[in-house]
């Protein structure tokens, strides 16, 4: 069952709801990042604001995709073949890692639409 989440942990309530409105108005695309052999692929992904990223774990080992600076977003634990979607409504680069295997690192860049 895919789980979904939204970023915004660092934003104030007002700014956050404004962004949600913006992103709701924009029919974004959904991109996929596969977690396979202890790597995120693609390791560098560029998307537009409001797009979704679906993280799919293909490994036997459970993984997460977790924002690195302050846990701004997090897929939670993904068992084999599980996936989770995250919506990106803030422009900029998100560095993320696997909370279980911290050497697994990747980034997503969000550009204006």
């Amino acid at each position, binding site marked *: 069952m895919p789980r979904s989440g939204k970023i915004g942990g660092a934003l104030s309530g007002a700014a956050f709801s404004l962004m949600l409105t913006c992103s709701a108005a924009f029919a974004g695309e959904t991109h996929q990042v596969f977690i396979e052999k202890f790597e995120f692929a693609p390791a560098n992904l560029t998307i537009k604001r409001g797009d979704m990223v679906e993280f799919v774990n293909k490994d*036997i*080992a*459970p993984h997460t995709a977790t924002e690195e600076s302050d846990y701004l977003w997090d897929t939670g634990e993904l068992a084999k073949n599980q996936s989770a979607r995250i919506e990106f409504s803030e422009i900029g680069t998100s560095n993320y890692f696997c909370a279980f295997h911290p*050497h697994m690192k990747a980034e997503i860049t969000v550009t204006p639409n």
Partner: protein
Amino acid sequence: MKLIKIAAAAAVVAASFTAPAFAEEKMNDLEIAHTAYTAGGLDIRYAHLALALSENDSVREFANVMIRDHSAVNQEAGALIQKLNVTPQDNGLSQALVKGAAEKRAEFVKLSGKAFDCAYAQNELGYHQIVNQTVEGKFIPWATVEPLKALLEDALVTFKAHEKHAENMVNGLHCGS
């Protein structure tokens, strides 16, 4: 298949793996499955010991990763065994692993603090090194059933990540000083 309640010892495990009686004799698929499952169970058992005895964050974090990952791998192995409707075969290598781990565990429960952390961390590093050499150099080439080979290959990626993680843990603990 029962989960064997034991902890592992790098030195003893290394000796077991390199002993001619085990290393040179080719094992069949059912023996390989048994030993791979046993080795995973031993590491889980060991991680529980670490969670009970260690207060070090990096050690506890590593132990949690071991429990999570080895449980997932063994769950896949269990599912495969069920699907193929076969019974893994106990064998000399599995028995040596279990015995060596029991001895090491008895030694480790007497330790605490940094002495335990270092003993556990170094043992995990040695254990994963030996297991990885065996899985990569022997079990995968020896396996004849395709899904077993594929599972071992997947498991090896996981165990190699553990080896690297163990190396970082050992370095971070500064056990020499």
